[in-house]
């Protein structure tokens, strides 16, 4: 614990720093970050070719050709210098802290990767007469900036007025959402396809996450994130339209090829499922460890109604009808499974749902009733077709050539949009309040006249229906439906997506699902380590951001102990301590 505190700079070390140290520290950190970006990072030529952006003395070979992660370090460093000396923005401490963590993360990831590849610390220090201290300087630079930010005053996140003329608000929203689109496209493609052909995909992607995190943290510190979300709240309809258009425009960006469309579609399917799970776990507070089974039920129902040769039920229904049936059947089974769990709470409920998940997987594996194809799965599910166009074919819209699979992507975007609307409309309604009340205090909820049994079954039903719908799309997209896709690990990953993103929020579930299902793709090259890295990342995130990446207003208050001003309780305490030091009195004791 103390090590972690020290690590995060908020413990003893942070307290020894005085505000006077802030500027020199951040300035030194900024300069070092810039220097680090220009230094060589590797002492040898990596076996698989140079590490991206030729992490050697390239700047001197080709001036101004700093690219990739080194460009990011350079930009973050420059931003830290600008914020320190030129633009003394409100919320400066938070901006600097985020920038510092960004520099630190990028440098550390590269350092670890290069060290691992080079077989020792020689790879990032000096070996055979070649020196390469880039990553170490970068790590130090990041830490200095963070410490400097902590030494200074961490002021409140500023609130910007949302009283803008309509056109200005619309412009800001369009710029913001196009920015998000650009970020999503870059993040999808960062490092390229994982796997043997591209051993650098993992570290580049992780380093990009460091950059994105630093950038978003800085924007949050500036109050921009809050401002945009307040604006979009105010102009809700407009925001939804722009967001939808941006999502549909993804195939036009750098992510516009068949591979990324497939990845994006898969993410969409899991995001839809995660939102469904969010009803059960995030709103009603029912811990469900067998949730992916409902997605499986949807997939197998759709497979059986698709006219696939291997399916036992040889009925060939049009896709929309089959998808609706799949959703309905999953929902009914959800309600049936939910009813015996009404008498159990908490841990016991988790065990019961876990058992249900296992029953489903084992039944599917053993081909119960011949409906699941057992270990052969149900292959050959035909593609969805509309007007003679199969959904996996490339299409041309208004002269723009779109890659194959784009129609599946469009479909999942619309479905996720619809599911978001369902979630939001349920959350802010009579039944949504009842769910949250049950989560908060079941006995008190009953005393308020809520029939808790009925409400819980409704939560299971709603969640399972959405999962079933997602499963139907999943089966058609993959063109096969196998029990292997619906194992316990998937349930856990979905649950992790919901908790990681932030319980009870829509963007949280989508972000969580994206991260958790993209990471394994990108870390393919580290097959033996990827679950390790994955687990480690989860632990770190939960330690430093227990409320999730995009928390609910109240979740934030509960888990991060934040006060109304958006400060953490720790920070408030530090402030109090500072004031006690300033005011000499009976309380002002030892340092």
């Amino acid at each position, binding site marked *: 614990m103390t090590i972690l505190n020290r690590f995060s700079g908020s413990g003893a070390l942070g307290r020894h720093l005085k505000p006077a140290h802030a500027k020199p520290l951040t300035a030194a950190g900024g300069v070092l970050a810039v220097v680090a970006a220009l230094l060589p990072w590797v002492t040898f030529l990596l076996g698989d070719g140079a590490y991206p952006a030729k992490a050697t003395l390239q700047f001197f070979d080709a001036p101004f050709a700093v690219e990739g992660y080194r460009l990011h370090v350079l930009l973050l460093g420059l931003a830290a210098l600008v914020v320190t000396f030129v633009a003394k923005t409100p919320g400066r401490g938070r901006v600097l802290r985020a920038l510092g963590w960004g520099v630190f993360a990028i440098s550390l990831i590269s350092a670890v990767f290069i060290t691992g590849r080079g077989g020792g610390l020689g790879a990032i220090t000096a070996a055979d007469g070649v020196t390469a201290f880039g990553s170490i300087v970068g790590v130090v630079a990041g830490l200095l900036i963070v410490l400097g930010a902590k030494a200074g005053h961490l002021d409140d996140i500023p609130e910007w007025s949302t009283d803008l003329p309509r056109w200005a608000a619309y412009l800001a929203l369009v710029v913001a959402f196009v920015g998000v689109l650009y970020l999503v496209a870059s993040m999808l493609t960062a490092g390229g396809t994982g796997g043997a052909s591209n051993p650098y995909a993992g570290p580049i992607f992780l380093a990009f996450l460091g950059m994105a995190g630093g950038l978003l943290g800085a924007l949050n510190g500036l109050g921009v994130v809050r401002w945009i979300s307040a604006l979009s709240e105010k102009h809700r309809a407009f925001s939804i339209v722009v967001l939808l258009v941006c999502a549909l425009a993804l195939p036009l960006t750098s992510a516009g090829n068949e591979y990324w469309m497939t990845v994006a579609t898969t993410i969409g399917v899991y995001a839809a499922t995660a939102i469904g799970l969010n009803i059960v776990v995030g709103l009603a507070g029912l811990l469900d460890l067998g949730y992916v089974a409902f997605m499986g039920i949807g997939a197998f129902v759709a497979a059986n109604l698709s006219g696939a040769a291997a399916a036992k039920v040889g009925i060939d229904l049009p896709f929309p009808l089959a998808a609706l049936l799949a959703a309905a059947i999953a929902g009914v089974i959800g309600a049936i499974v939910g009813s015996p769990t009404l008498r159990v709470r908490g841990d016991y409920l988790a065990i019961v749902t876990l058992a249900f998940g296992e029953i489903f997987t084992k039944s599917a594996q053993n081909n119960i009733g011949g409906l699941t194809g057992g270990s052969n799965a149900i292959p050959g599910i035909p593609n969805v077709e509309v007007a003679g166009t199969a959904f996996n074919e490339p299409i041309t819209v208004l002269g723009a050539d779109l890659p194959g699979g784009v129609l599946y992507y469009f479909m999942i975007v619309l479905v996720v949009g619809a599911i978001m*609307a*369902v979630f939001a*409309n*349920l959350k802010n*309604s*009579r*039944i949504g*309040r*009842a769910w*949250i*009340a049950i989560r*908060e*205090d079941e*006995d*008190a*909820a*009953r*005393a*308020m*006249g*809520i*029939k*808790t049994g009925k409400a819980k079954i409704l939560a299971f039903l709603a969640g399972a229906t959405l999962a079933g719908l997602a499963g139907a799309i999943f089966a058609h997209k993959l063109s096969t439906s196998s029990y292997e896709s619906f194992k316990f690990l998937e349930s856990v990953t979905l649950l992790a997506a919901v908790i990681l993103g932030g319980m009870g929020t829509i963007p949280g579930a989508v972000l969580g699902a994206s991260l958790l299902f993209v990471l394994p793709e990108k870390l393919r090259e580290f097959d033996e380590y990827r679950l390790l890295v994955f687990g480690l990342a989860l632990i770190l995130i939960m330690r430093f951001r227990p409320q999730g990446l995009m928390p609910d207003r*109240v*979740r934030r*208050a*509960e888990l991060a102990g934040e006060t109304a001003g958006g400060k953490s309780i720790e920070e408030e305490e530090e402030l109090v301590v500072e004031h006690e030091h300033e005011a000499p009195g009976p309380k002002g004791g030892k340092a």
Partner: protein
Amino acid sequence: MSITDNMAAAPAPPVLQAQGVTMVFGGLTALNNVSLSLGKGEIVGLIGPNGAGKTTFFNCLTGLYLPSRGRVLLDGSQLAADPSKVTIAGVARTFQNIRLFPNMTVLENVMVGRHSRMRQDPISTLLRLPAFHRGERAARERSRELLEFVGLTRAEHEVARNLPYGDQRRLEIARALATDPKVLLLDEPTAGMNPQETEATRQLIFAIRDTGVSVVVIEHDIKFIFGLCDKVSVLVQGELLVEGTPEVVRADPRVVEAYLGKPPEEVEADVRAASTEHDTRGEA
């Protein structure tokens, strides 16, 4: 103490009636043949030493327990042993240890109380049809009225857990009132309050009574009970010892004796001291 006018009013037919309620846990008889009758607009107090069975009796009234013998009637029809059905029938309650929905806002807490008094069908909820908005608006307006009634309008958008203690108690009352009860059961509404807050609570309970709601109060603070209630019932070791107006109960030697055989002034001090232990120990 000037509630004699009220007592003089013609007795209304009982709203809530407990008839011979007996509750046996294993071999322990927690309640033995306890009866209670509550008229419209009446305030009845329930007092007794620790472990006398007050909370058990409360739980029988609110449907948490099904009495082993005897029955509880609301307007002449028997109440089900299911807290949600009891609430829907018109008996609302607060809790001894405040049990709000801590992470919901003040307004949302009260709106949860409206749950059983509003209808929303799934179609209009999902599609946000006009019927949905009408229902929500009505629930929100009624909830705001209640918040104004208990004096929490300013805190409408605060998260419930951040409210000061006294405000949390008042919010619990507003939430209970949102279920449109005929009878309101208050479980130690002034526990942990200072004298000013206690007096404000007393005025609030009178105001509730004036809207036609009947009130049952469990309390340790005897002075508070005597200054508030039209009738007082004293429970001792699971049995109803005395029942009557505050004057009658106060004068009854058995009550004095039950409270350690001391005159009322000292009894009061004793009971106050005991009530601080009460939370940690709980009751049978």
